[in-house]
Structures are given as C-alpha cells and as structure tokens.
C-alpha cells in the first residue's frame, strides 16, 4: 500500500515536471514574450523598447536557465542598473535586496509573480481555488444525488418506459456542452425580455426583473440561490448525464445477477431488493466514475466561470492563458496535475474498500 502511494506520488511529480516544461517552453517563445512585454509596459512600444524591457525584467537569459530559476535549482537573475539599484527575481519576490542571488523557485516554496494580476501567484491561486472549491462543492451536491437517482431508477427495470425516458434525458444532458447549455439557461431563465422571466413577472410570481441572475460575479461576496443556480446547473447537467448512464449500466448488470433472482424467488419485495441487495454493488462503478469526472469538470469550470464571469480557478486559467501570464499558467498546470492524480488515487483506494475482491499489490 505504501509502495503504491509512493509510486503514485512519484508519477505525479514526473507528470508535473513534464507538463510545466512544455507550458514553459510554449509561453516563452519569443513572440509570446513580446506580447507579455507589450501588455505589461504599453501595447504600442517599439521593438527596441521591448528588448530593453525584456532585458531589464530577466527574460533575456536562455529558456532552460529561466526554467531552472522557476524550479529553484538555479539562482534567480540579478541586475544592477546604472544608479546602483539592484533588481532581480528574488529581490521582487522576497521584497528585500539581500535576497539577490538566492534560489527562489517552487522548490523553495516561491510560486512566482502573476503579471496579469500584479500579485503573488500563491495568493492569486489560493483565493481563486477557494472560489472554485465552493462552486465544485455545489456542483457535486447537485450532480451526484441527481445522477444516482436517475441512474438507479432507469437501471431498475431495463427497457421499461421509465428507463427509456430517463436515459433520453441523461443522454441529452451529457451531449450538450456547457457553452450551449449555459447560453440556453441564460436565455431561458435570466433575461428580462425573453424566456420565462417576463412571463413570471407578468403573473406577479417574482419581484425582480429576472428569475435567476445571468452573472455570478456577486457570488464572490455572497452566494445566493439567485446568482449561483445557473453556473452550478450548467456544470452539473453535463456531468449528471454521464454519471447517470454509468450508474444505469452498473445497475442493470447487478439486477441480472443470480443472487437478485434468488431473492426475488424467495419473495423479497422489489423495493427491498433494490435498496438492500443491489444498491451497494451497483455503486462501485459510479464511485470511480464520479472521482474521474472531477478533472473533467475542471473543463466545464473554465467555460462556466468565464461565461458567468465568476473568478475561480477556470477563469484564472483562461485569463492567464489569454495574457501569457507565465508563472500563473505554470502554477495552474501543477494544480491541474495534482487534482487529476489525487482524484485518481482516491478512486483507486476507495475502490479497494468498496470491492473486497480487488487488492492493491
């Protein structure tokens, strides 16, 4: 078991290293650095000014050296200008000139500086991850029970009318990408001119102009039903269909097992068979899928957060990519690697406990 854990963590580190190197290489192409200089110091700078800016801000050294600086295996760049003022990677990060020449990369716990948000990467990411954590929590709270209920109801009696109806809903919801469902939901529920809201207003059922808010910015301060429903629903609907399909498949398989038939022949009521005999075995597969679904939901988070302008992890990733914020992008990829591998780890370990036939060697 311990060996298994170590191996997994080792794999995680190697993956993170490879991924960050690729991201680093892509974001440090000369054209990208030029973009960075222009977004940082004036979009209409001349080429000479761009070169000067890159040189002054430590972007002129070779790419591998800078990757080493970011990792913390090489000392950060240092520069002394004509007036004797010392600038450098570590000087800026630690806010003291004494730090010049030290190593200050992620090995030392320095995540770097976000050029887009003008703040420390660790600070930006922790705040944004907190916001996404809340969103994901609500997504799971909505998605998991809905998916399981739909899947179990559909899988109880394979081929029945309930099964067909619920399966259609599940397939439709999982086949609709977030950028479609999000826009549809906004048009339907969050517009004062089209959709349901004008109708509800004319009937006097709601006070405000719209049923739900089509923008989740205010959820940053205070989460309400009105501002959080649509983003949560957008992500949950997509994941819901998939998990429901897996649950249904697993449920129908269990329902054809010999022991279920035995129970029926013994005269156990149908409800009791489902709850007592079928459910635990049928939930093993969905558990794994739900865990594996979390990294997939991160995709949805990017789209949904940008669409509803809710500044979470996905929104930050988008902003960092659009603005070529190198160190923020690198840190985001590390976070993404950790999320993927940790959820996989949980699903593997959890699987062992749910299914006694499996052993981790």
């Amino acid at each position: 078991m311990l060996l298994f854990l170590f191996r997994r963590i080792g794999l995680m580190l190697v993956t993170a290293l490879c991924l960050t190197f690729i991201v680093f290489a892509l974001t440090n192409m000369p054209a990208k650095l030029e973009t960075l200089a222009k977004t940082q110091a004036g979009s209409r700078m001349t080429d000479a000014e761009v070169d000067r800016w890159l040189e002054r801000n430590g972007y002129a050294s070779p790419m591998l050296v800078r990757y080493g600086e970011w990792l913390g295996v090489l000392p950060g760049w240092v520069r002394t200008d004509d007036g004797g003022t010392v600038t450098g990677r570590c000087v800026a990060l630690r806010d003291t000139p004494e730090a010049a020449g030290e190593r200050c990369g992620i090995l030392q716990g320095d995540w770097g500086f976000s050029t887009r948000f003008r703040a420390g990467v660790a600070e930006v990411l922790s705040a944004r991850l907190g916001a996404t954590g809340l969103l994901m929590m609500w997504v799971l709270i909505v998605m998991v029970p809905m998916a399981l209920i739909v899947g179990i109801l559909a899988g109880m009696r394979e081929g029945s009318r309930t099964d067909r109806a619920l399966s259609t809903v599940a397939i439709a919801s999982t086949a609709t990408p977030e950028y479609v469902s999000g826009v549809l939901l906004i048009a339907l529920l969050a517009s004062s001119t089209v959709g349901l809201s004008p109708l509800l207003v004319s009937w006097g059922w709601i006070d405000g102009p719209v049923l739900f808010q089509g923008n989740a910015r205010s959820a940053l301060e205070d989460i309400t039903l009105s501002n959080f429903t649509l983003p949560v629903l957008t992500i949950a609907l997509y994941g819901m269909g998939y998990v429901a399909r897996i649950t249904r498949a697993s449920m129908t398989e269990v329902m054809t097992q010999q022991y279920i038939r035995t129970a029926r022949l013994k005269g156990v009521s149908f409800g009791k068979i489902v709850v007592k005999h079928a459910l635990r075995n049928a939930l093993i597969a969905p558990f794994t899928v739900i865990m594996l679904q979390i990294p997939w939901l991160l995709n949805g988070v990017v789209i949904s957060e940008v669409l509803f302008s809710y500044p979470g992890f996905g929104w930050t990733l988008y902003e960092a990519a659009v603005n070529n914020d190198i160190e923020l992008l690198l840190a985001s990829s590390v976070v993404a690697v950790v999320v993927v591998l940790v959820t996989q780890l949980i699903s593997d370990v959890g699987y062992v406990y749910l299914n006694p036939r499996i052993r981790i060697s």
Partner: protein
Amino acid sequence: MKDFSQEAVDRVHPAADVYARDYRAGKLSRREFLTRATALGLAAPAAYGLIGLAAPSVAQAQTPTMGGTLKMQMAIKAQRDPRTWDWSELANACRGWLEYLVDYQRDGTLLPVLLEGWEASDDAKTYTLRVRPGVKWNNGDDFTAADVAHNFERWCDGSVEGNSMATRMGSLVENNMVREGGIEIVDDLTVRINLSQPDIALMVSVADYPAAVMHPSFTGDDPVANPIGTGPYLPVSYEPGIGAVVERNADHTWWNEGNGAYLDRIEFIDLGTDPAAWVASAESGEIDLNYQAQGDIIDIFDAIGMPRTEAVTAATIAVRFNQENEPYDNKDVRKALQLAVSNAIVLELGYNDLGTVAENHHVCPIHPEYAELAPLTVDGAAARAAIEAAGLGDYEFELISIDEPWQAETCDAVAAQIRDAGINIKRTILPGATFWNDWTKYPFSATEWNMRPLGVQILNLAYRTGVPWNEAAFSNEEFDTLLDQANGIADADARREVMHRLEEIMQEEGVLIQPYWRSIFRNARPNVHGAEMHPTFVVDYVKYWLS
C-alpha cells in the same frame, strides 16, 4: 468651475478674438470655437462670453444629490506608471484621486483643474501656467509650481519604456529629457514652459489621460498602492480582471469641495470582453452603466431600460498601407485600392451607420483646422485597370485586422468592395494578443485610433517621418515641413490654409483608407447623472451623481 482669477479673463489671446469674429460670421461652429479659444488659455466661461453665450453649468437642470453607490462595468487592468498608460480605463479608475492640470470637456472646451489658468505667447512657444492656489495633496503637502515642473520632467523622460507622454511633449524633449531651460519655476504658483518649436497642442496634450499629475514621492509603477493625489476619493480595492472600489476620502479637504464628489462609493466591475455578460449583469441589477456599448448591444441596453448617450468623436479606424512593404511602396497601387472603396458603404456595413463618413486624410470636421476638400470618387473599373497596369492583376492582397467585431466587419466591408472591383484580396483576422505585436509592420491592416482634439496632433503622432506610431511608414518631406509650420500657427484659420495642403498630400499619396469617424455610445440607467459618454472615454466619476 467658478473661481477664475480676474486676469485670466482680462488678457484675451489675440487669436481668440479672431475666433469669436469667425464664430459670429458663421465660419466656426460653437464647438470648434470653444476648443480653440480654451486651448489658448481662455477660461470656458470667458470663451462662452466672447461669443455672447452663458456658460452652461453642469448642474443646470437639477441640483446633484449627495450619496449613493454607483456600479459601472469597466475593464480593470493591471496598473502601471501613469505616463505609460495605454488604455483609458487605467486612467479612469484613478481619476478620483489623480487629477489633471486641465480637463478636456464633452463640449470641446479645456477646463483648468490644478491650474487656475494659462496663457500662450502669440507664437505659441512660451506658455505661462498659473497654479491653482490652495490645492493640497491628500497627505497634507501643498501643491506648488515645483510639483507641476516635476510632472513635466516626468513626462519628458523618454528613457522610460512606453512613456507616451514624451511624444506628446514635442519640442520640450531633447535627448530623452527636458531641454535646457525648458521649464522655469517663476514663483510658487507660476511655471513657464519654453519650447524650441511652436506647439499649439501642448495644453490639450496635458489633458490627455496619461498626464495624471503625480506626487513627487511617486516612483514605482503602481498609483493604486500608494494613492497620493489631490482628488476627493481613495481606492479601497483594485483587482485586475475583477474590479475596483473607490470611496470618498473623509480625511482630505478637496480644493473644489461642493462641486463634485457626490457619490460615496464607486464600484467598477470587470465583466470581461463579452458584451452578453454585461447585459446579463445589467438585467440582474449588478451594474448601473456600461463603459462603452457597440453595435447591436446599444439597442439591447436601450430595450432593458438603460438609454444610450452618444458622443461624436474624431476616433476612427485607419485601414492603412505600410509603404515599406511591397506592393504598397507603389503609390498607384495604394491609390487604386482607395479608389475601389466607398467609405459610405463601409460605414453602413461595418459600423451600422453610427458615425460620419471620412475622407482618407485623418483630419476630422470637428477638428478646428479642418479644411474641406473635393469629395472622393469611387470607381471600381479604374481601380482594376490601375492594379493591372501595375502588373498585379493576379496578385492576392491580404488585409489583416484584429478580432474585435466592428473592426473585423469594417475590414470585411473594405475587402468586399475591393473584391467587387475584380481585385483578389483575402482577409486575415488575428487575436488581440498577437495582433499588437506587429501592428506597425503589417503590410495592409487596420488600426483603431482614438481621437485627439486637434488635427495636427494626430498627424504629428502617426504620419510624421520616423515617429514610432507611423504605421503607414509614410515619409514625405513637404508634409513634414508643412506640419512643422502648422504646429506654430495658433490661429486656426491661418493653420487651415496649411492643413488644406496637408490633407491633399495625404490623399495624393494614398496613405490610408480611412472610412469613417465613429460615434461612441454608453448606456446608463435614467437615475445616473453626469455620466454621458465622453469623446475621449473619460469617466470622471467625481462629477457623477445618482437620483
């Protein structure tokens, strides 16, 4: 403002009297008269007085009510040194505590703010600036002539990357710094600026958004972190991409107490670039006004109870040829492409007719020195013939634009007409992140240009030989000489003579296809006052109020 000292009104620049005569003779519009007269140092009420009008007061219709929180959609970008600002939004967020020497008003006048007044010498080489007495920084220091001089020195420092003020200071800059004897502190409240070349644009330049007046202690690149300024507000928070909050500064006595700072709190909300998100936000009551609406979005906002305000501007799009690239080094090719395009059609298809047709010379009818030329002709067949004569019958031209809808659509309309004339052309649309890397070098592309109050300003900035923003790579000796000459003519009528020729050269040389002048729009709830769209995108929230 009400408290102009008497001498400001007494000494009237001789050219201003000439303007007043022209206005009465119908040669000048009111707006043109006001821009010209106030640029010469005449206070707005005095300028209005010269032509026998009463100055409109901001609070004419209603008395502003104090208090309230205003929520505005606006992009919040990472801050940096004000003189390197390249987006009006950067300046707008800071306008509550950073003030300017003078403000450019919606009606085209210059309003003295931290100056009490100024006079230009008749040759427009010497400017005497009189500092407003009684102004205090919010850290308790007095605002003096030394502070004004310090800011001029900052603006003139060309060694700072991206310092666009250095190009605006013109002949005050020599070797990347202030010229010897360029700034003279006469006494505590008087500064004299001595230029080596006449420059009639100096005062409008210091009204431009990167010219925020900074405290001498400001060194870094973040005016929010250490908000020492003269204005009545202070920043509470500032998060790029998310928003900014500004609140009235209770510990500071503002020099203009009572004539602004009505709101308690202003919240800027950055909702990204997708206008659909702005609409969704407005519908749920999260914003009271937007920063700028374009195209269909204006109508949608109108429909949800946020009427539009319009500003007619000299902002435009320059579909320019770069003369360093083949085949655009050939004047005949450039002129042929111009000939194929009807600017009126571009305005209609590319910008929903929300503007006025322009004439390919980048001088706008609202510029004081605008001279009317003969109307442009459109002749597709002649264009095709000229392209064939140049041996480019099979050549495929390429027109590049940024991915912003109105700019892409404008270029589509230009390209479609060129195609209709029988000339091969393809369109390329680049995302904003890559477009700006090479904006001055593309062979044939479109660039958005904001307005400048004077016609000579834009020509100085964009078409003089060798200047950094000369994206057309235009170089013409006669043009440069005449432009120098025009820069020294304070009298706009006399300058118009020269401008007439400058505009002709622009057209003769086929420098660019400049299809239209944009009107710009902002939508706000009816209870928001003073927040009408400003031609240079100024969001002076110090003057906004809510009823």
